[in-house]
C-alpha cells in the first residue's frame, strides 16, 4: 500500500531563509505525489504535483519539490520564506484512486 512519512511535525524558519519540508514515500509502483498547503481555517490548496515527468517540480508561490527515487523522497523547498508561508503542509501520495495523506508539517515563519 502507498504511504508517506513526513519527517518533521514542526519546522521553524526565519523570514528570508530557505525552507525544507521533508517527505519520504513508500509505493510499490511509480507514484504520483503531491504537496498541499492548509492555511488556518482554510481548505487544502494544491502546491505542486509529480506524475512521472520531470523530477524537479515547480509549484505555486515559489515552492518546488524534487522526486528522488533512490532515496524515496519528495522534499519540498523554497529559497526564501515569507510570513505568508506559515501554514500546515501535507505530503500526499496517490493510492489507487484516492489520496493518502502524511501527518502534516506545521511551518512557522519568524520575523
Amino acid at each position: 500500500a502507498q504511504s508517506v512519512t513526513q519527517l518533521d511535525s514542526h519546522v521553524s524558519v526565519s523570514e528570508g531563509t530557505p525552507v525544507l519540508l521533508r517527505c519520504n514515500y513508500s509505493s510499490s509502483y511509480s507514484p504520483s505525489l503531491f504537496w498541499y498547503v492548509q492555511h488556518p481555517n482554510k481548505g487544502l490548496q494544491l502546491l505542486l504535483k509529480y506524475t512521472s515527468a520531470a523530477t524537479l517540480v515547480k509549484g505555486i508561490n515559489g515552492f518546488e519539490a524534487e522526486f528522488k527515487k533512490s532515496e524515496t523522497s519528495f522534499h519540498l523547498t523554497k529559497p526564501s520564506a515569507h510570513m505568508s508561508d506559515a501554514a500546515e503542509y501535507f505530503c500526499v501520495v496517490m493510492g489507487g484512486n484516492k489520496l493518502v495523506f502524511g501527518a502534516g508539517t506545521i511551518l512557522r515563519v519568524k520575523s
Partner: protein
Amino acid sequence: EPEVTQTPSHQVTQMGQEVILRCVPISNHLYFYWYRQILGQKVEFLVSFYNNEISEKSEIFDDQFSVERPDGSNFTLKIRSTKLEDSAMYFCASSGGYNYGYTFGSGTRLTVV
C-alpha cells in the same frame, strides 16, 4: 479559477441527529470525494464517487454514512445518526481524472455535542 464550494462552513449538531453536508464540485469534473480530518489527526479518505455510484470507500464509511449526487451539481454526504467521534473537518474534493490533482473545498467543521 474554478472552486469547490462547501456548505455550511460550520455545523453543530446533537448526538443522534442526522446531518447533511453539501458540496458543489467543479462543473466539468467527474470524480468526487469526501475526506475528513479529526482535530490533530491525519486527513483520511472516506469515499469516492464516479458515474453516479460509489467507486471506493474506506472502513470508516460504514452504514451511518451515505453519499449522493441528487441533481447533477450537488454532492452530499449524509451521516444518519451522528456520534461524538464524527466531530471533524469534512472536505469535499473533485477531480477531472487520474493525475489531474484534486481541488478541495474549504471544508465543513462538524461538531457533535
